[in-house]
């Protein structure tokens, strides 16, 4: 089967991937979410309200910026940055949380829960909940709370409760587990705003659709600003929501090369990275059949990334589908290349990128250097890097 935009099917399958591997307790809520989302998609007023919020509250469309000094530094293709870092709350995550907040209101649920790694999704969820008046609880691993302190404080300022997760690796994966457990008991009055294109059907489809505004705008902006589609698009990929939203509107444009960049971490050794599509294999985690990092018994393996948002042992099922069909090429940037790319963008363009997005910058710069000057590479700059300042200082041994 070739890659197509006509997925998932009725069972939530992207080719072989996806599905719904969750306890029976959650089935009714997922069925209800599917029904409400499908109705909302057909509802003109729902779409209009989301568009209005995107424009006046988030600040969309986000610019497509020609990074001329970074381009000159590479000496190859023209590099453009899709500036999701300029959105309200500083990342692409708000695109999804506002959409799901509208769904929450539609379902009449007064309480929202979420997981967060880097804290960007947590802040975006807390923001949407404040805007709509929902009670908000965000689960976050203790290790991530340590390395993303500014976002933790922001969530509290926005009125959310941040619940530290001390089980397992104390990172994103454990935060997802705790959010699922909360939902098991509260499903009647609570919506779980999952932040990435992972999890049981219909989440991967819903998150991809709400994030697809990134790719739709990029497509239109490319036609307006350069008069054609780009040659290559690069996005970082942990769970893969910014990449899914960026790539999806280009899936049927075979001439546009799509590159997903995973977290290469410290080394290629199991446990030292989070490059699931590069080194993992198909299996089941967090409700979906997709590539995962597991041992031979099916136990989830430990992963590592310098960026909390990519420090995850799974990936969205649609990415697994795109990988196996060959539509998207998945590579990885290690921690060192990522920190170098962070520096390069800061010094050449005056933009501090999130460490997650710095992975995409690292590979985009490498790819652009091998291309001609009349070619175009677009990078999804999914978030801003202010949240990472303290962690970067710590890694450099500098006082913050």
């Amino acid at each position, binding site marked *: 089967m070739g890659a197509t935009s006509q997925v998932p099917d009725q*069972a939530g399958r992207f080719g072989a991937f996806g*599905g*719904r*591997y*969750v*306890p*029976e*307790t*959650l*089935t*009714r*809520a997922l069925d209800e979410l599917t029904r409400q989302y499908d109705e909302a998609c057909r509802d003109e007023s729902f779409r209009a309200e989301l568009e209005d919020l995107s424009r006046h509250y988030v600040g969309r469309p986000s610019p497509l910026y020609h990074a001329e000094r970074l381009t000159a530094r590479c000496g190859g293709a023209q590099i453009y940055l899709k500036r999701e870092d300029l959105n309200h709350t500083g990342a692409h995550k708000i695109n999804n949380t506002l959409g799901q907040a509208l769904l929450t209101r539609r379902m009449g649920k007064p309480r929202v829960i979420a997981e967060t790694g880097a804290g960007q999704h947590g802040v975006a969820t807390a923001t949407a909940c404040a805007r709509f008046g929902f009670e908000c609880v965000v689960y976050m691993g203790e290790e991530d709370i340590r390395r993303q302190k500014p976002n933790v404080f922001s969530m509290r300022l926005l009125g959310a409760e941040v619940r530290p997760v001390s*089980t*397992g690796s104390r990172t994103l*994966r454990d935060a997802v*587990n705790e959010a*699922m*457990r909360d939902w*098991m*008991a509260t*499903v*009647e009055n609570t919506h779980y705003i999952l932040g990435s294109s992972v999890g049981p059907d219909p989440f991967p489809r819903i998150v991809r659709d709400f994030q697809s505004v990134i790719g739709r705008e990029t497509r239109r902006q490319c036609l307006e600003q350069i008069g054609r589609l780009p040659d290559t698009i690069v996005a970082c990929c942990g769970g893969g929501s910014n990449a899914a939203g960026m790539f999806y509107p280009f899936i049927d444009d075979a001439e546009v090369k799509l590159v997903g960049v995973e977290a290469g971490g410290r080394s290629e050794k199991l446990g030292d990275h989070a490059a699931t599509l590069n080194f993992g294999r198909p*299996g*089941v*985690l*967090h*409700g979906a*059949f997709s590539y*995962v990092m*597991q041992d*031979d*018994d*099916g*136990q*989830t393996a430990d992963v590592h990334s310098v960026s909390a948002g990519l420090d995850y042992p799974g990936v969205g099922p649609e990415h697994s589908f795109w990988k196996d069909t060959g539509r998207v090429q998945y590579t990885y940037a290690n921690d060192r290349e990522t920190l170098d790319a962070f520096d390069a963008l800061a010094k050449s363009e005056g933009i501090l990128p999130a460490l997650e997005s710095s992975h995409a910058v690292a590979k985009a710069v490498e790819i652009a250097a091998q291309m001609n000057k009349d070619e175009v590479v677009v990078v999804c700059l999914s978030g801003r890097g202010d949240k990472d300042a303290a962690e970067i200082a710590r890694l450099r041994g500098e006082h913050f």
Partner: protein
Amino acid sequence: MSSIDTLFKTLRSQNRKAFMPFVTAGDPDLEFTSALLRRLVDRGSSMCELGIPYSDPIADGPVIQASYTRALDAGLHVADIFDMLAGTTPELPAPVVTMVSYSIVYRIGLAQYVARAKAAGVAGAIVPDLPVQESDDLAKVCRSEDFSLIQLVTPTTPPDRAKQIADKTTGFIYYVSVTGITGERTELPPQIVDNVAWLREQTDLPVCIGFGISRPEHVRMLAPVADGLIVGSAIVRRVAEAATRDRQSVLSEIADYVDQLLAAMP
């Protein structure tokens, strides 16, 4: 006819109910698990449910999660569990079923998992993260091996879907008493009684109730309407002490606790 079918046929003919303890494999080690299974059956348990430790058990509360973490941290592998069972089940006059995540079953291989479990004397599997619409592949393997695939019905399951689940289940139906994760509860929702009574009218399969059951008053409330009761976290919590205390006294305390619950059975 599987050993589970035979068990419930016998119990029903005697108008008795099944008491089914849940224990985590390998907590604190497999030698203790083996001794615990023997002791539990010795005291009158009709069947044992053995939890296969998993790294990300989203349906489990803190007590069972912690037991899984202890077992995995000690280096437990699925192959070791089957070895222990192969040495234990021949002398155990009660069926054993595994509670296992589909992540593990899929990684080991559906046919491979069922074959290895069966060879170790296991009668069936409960796969809590495999809802009925995803269960066809495993159900097919289980049917051909006469290995029971026990499916779950919960308070949030609509009636039509509950019937569909009953049609696809073998062995017994696991009725989840509460909307939530595993763990002891002080009180259980009273509507369980009506829900289980309704479910038993829809099917000839035995219906057993689990999640939250930990006290004699729970047993008195639920045993009359069900074919069996499952008690997990209350036992696993007591097992947790086996790592640091005299094992024989922990085994005796669990046996005493089980006696109290059994005394409340009709």
